[in-house]
Each structure stands twice: as C-alpha cells, then as structure tokens.
C-alpha cells in the first residue's frame, strides 16, 4: 500500500481526504498542486480526473477522485484495520449515518461554502467580497444549525456515536473558525458548540490542521 494524494494543500476538498487518512492512521504522501494548469492537461483529464479537478488519490495502481468518493473508498478498505468505526457495519445504524451525510451535502455545505468562497477564496485572490452572498449564506446556515441544535440534544454526535457524518462537517467548520468572524454561529448554540468542539479537538483534526 502506497498512498499518494494530489491536491491543493489548503483546499477544503483536499483537507477532507487528509482528515480521513489521519482518522484511519494511514501513511500517505501529499503531492501539492502548485500550478492549476497541470490539472487541465490532456493527460490529467484522461488519467486522473475528467473535469480537471483535485484531489486525486492513488493507492498503488488504483486511482480515484472526488473527495467524498475517496473517503468512502478509504473507509471501505481500511476501517477494519484501524481502531475506528466511521461507517457502522450494522445496516440500520449505517443508514442513519447516511442520512446525516446527506444533511451535510444538502443543507450544511452549500451555505458554508458560499460564505467561505467569498471570505477565503476571493480575499486570497484579491477579489472583493460579495457581502450579499455572505449575508444569504449566514441566513441559511442559521436555520440549518437551529435544526442541528435539536438533533444534537442529549447527543455528542449526530447519530449518537462519532461517524463519517460528523467527520464530514469538520472541514467547513474549521474554515469558519480559522478564516472568518462568524464562529458565533456555532458558539451560540450549546449542543452545536459541544459537538463542533469535540470534532475540532480530535487528534486527527489537530494533526490535519497543524
């Protein structure tokens, strides 16, 4: 097993995979992309990612892309040897985890990625922040986190025990804390705050963001 991850080191999509690799205790080599042109070549489109995107993971000869597909692959292959259960074997428990994975894709990620695109990506590239987009993102995420506050009543994690679903929420939360003035959206809701604090204090998270 020789794992190589190609990606922009600070990109949330790359960090999502790095976090999974660290949770599973897997050694890997990170090959940083420094010039975006290198992922748009004919060779890259044919052999790595037809949409010219990263991250791409190579596990010996097997090549896989799309961060959530990569994470699922790593979990399927290596979870049983690691000391952690990210997707339970029990069908009913796994399906509840899938429910919360779907929340992350449908409700949590879209508004936060809108905010972070403005606050991180635009700022880094010297472009103006569209405050209207940030405002709309904040309005949307506030409603979502109101629901999460109820879901997390009496629970440390979404389906009770730590799972891939909780794991997937970490990267955007880290982005909000590290690069914006909006961490209050988590801090002012006691159950959400407890949950996010647990996620951010995990060893794998600290290692990923060190």
């Amino acid at each position, binding site marked *: 097993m020789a794992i190589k991850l190609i990606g922009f080191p600070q990109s949330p999509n790359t960090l999502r995979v790095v976090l999974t690799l660290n949770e599973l205790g897997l050694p890997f080599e990170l090959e940083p992309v420094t010039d975006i042109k290198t992922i748009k070549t004919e060779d890259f489109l044919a052999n790595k990612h037809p949409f010219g995107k990263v991250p791409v993971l190579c596990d010996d000869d097997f090549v896989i892309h799309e961060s*959530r597909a990569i994470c699922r692959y790593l979990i399927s292959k290596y979870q049983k040897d690691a000391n952690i259960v990210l997707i339970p074997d029990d069908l009913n428990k796994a399906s509840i985890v899938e429910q919360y994975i779907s929340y992350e894709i449908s409700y949590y990620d879209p508004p936060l990625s809108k905010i972070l695109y403005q606050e991180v990506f635009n700022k880094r590239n010297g472009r103006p922040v569209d405050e209207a987009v940030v405002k709309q993102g904040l309005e949307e995420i506030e409603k979502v986190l109101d629901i999460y506050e109820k879901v997390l009543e009496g629970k440390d994690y979404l389906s009770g025990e730590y799972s891939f679903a909780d794991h997937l929420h970490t990267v955007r939360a880290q982005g909000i804390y590290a690069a914006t003035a909006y961490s209050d959206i988590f801090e002012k809701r006691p159950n959400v705050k407890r949950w996010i604090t647990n996620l951010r204090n995990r060893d794998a998270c600290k290692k990923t963001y060190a």
Partner: protein
Amino acid sequence: GKIPVLHDGDYKIAESRAICRYLVSKYQGKYNNTILIPNDIHEAGLVEEFISYEAFYYEPPASKIVYYELVLRTPESEIIKQALKDINKILDVFDKLLEGKEYLNGEFSLADLFYCPCTHFIYSTHADLWDKRPNVKKWWDRLRNRDAWKMSLEKKNKL
C-alpha cells in the same frame, strides 16, 4: 420538514440518497440480479465518483432549471442560461466518458439511476442537450427505457 421519508416496517429513514443506499444495502440481489453498488471495493469507488459528480456538478444546475422552468415558470431567467451552460459542459465530459460504454461505470449502477429524475424533467424542454451528443443520447435512451424507470413513471402519473 422535508420528504421523501421511507418506512420499512418499524424502521424510518429520510434523505433520498440515504434511503437509496439503505435499500441497496438491504435488498440488492435479493429479488433480482441488479447490482447497484458493486461489492468490489475498487469498482464501488468508481461508482462513488459518478455519484459525487451527480451531487456536486449535475444536480445544482439541473435543479435550478427544474425549479425556474417548472415551478416558477420564468424560462428566460439568467440563472437558467448559466445552468444550461453548466449542464452542457458536464455532458461534453460525459460524452467522452461514455465512449464504448453503456453506462457510466460500464455496468448499470446507482450512479446512473441518480441522474434520471432531473434529466426526465429537463429533457422535456431541452432534449437537444442529450440528443446532439451520440454517447449521452444512447445512455439516456437506455436509462429511460429501463422497466424500473417506466414503472416508476406509471406510478407517479397515477398519483
């Protein structure tokens, strides 16, 4: 406060993609030979790539077209124009990926199935996007001629 929600005996699950995965995990291979998520880890990984494309590249523009054209009925909106551009780019890539293949990962999988609902609606007003790309056209024709899809539409039309 969203639907669909599935009840299977006493078990309840929401979120359409989670419901589909639950059904696949529990029932795949039990009533027929259709395999929607391969058992082989590497093949499953490749199917997951196409599932990810659908969730993050296809669904966002596709659902905008469905919403603005079918629900709001404002077909000239700038949003629809941009969404159609995005769909065109995706289908360009798919036309290459489907070269020599019947389905996205070779054999029919959950990934192909996920594209059906939005495509069904958009095809009614923008068929040329699929019809002008030979591999994509064949793929969509295969999908919409599957018995399961036809049965699903019959059930929907009866509701």
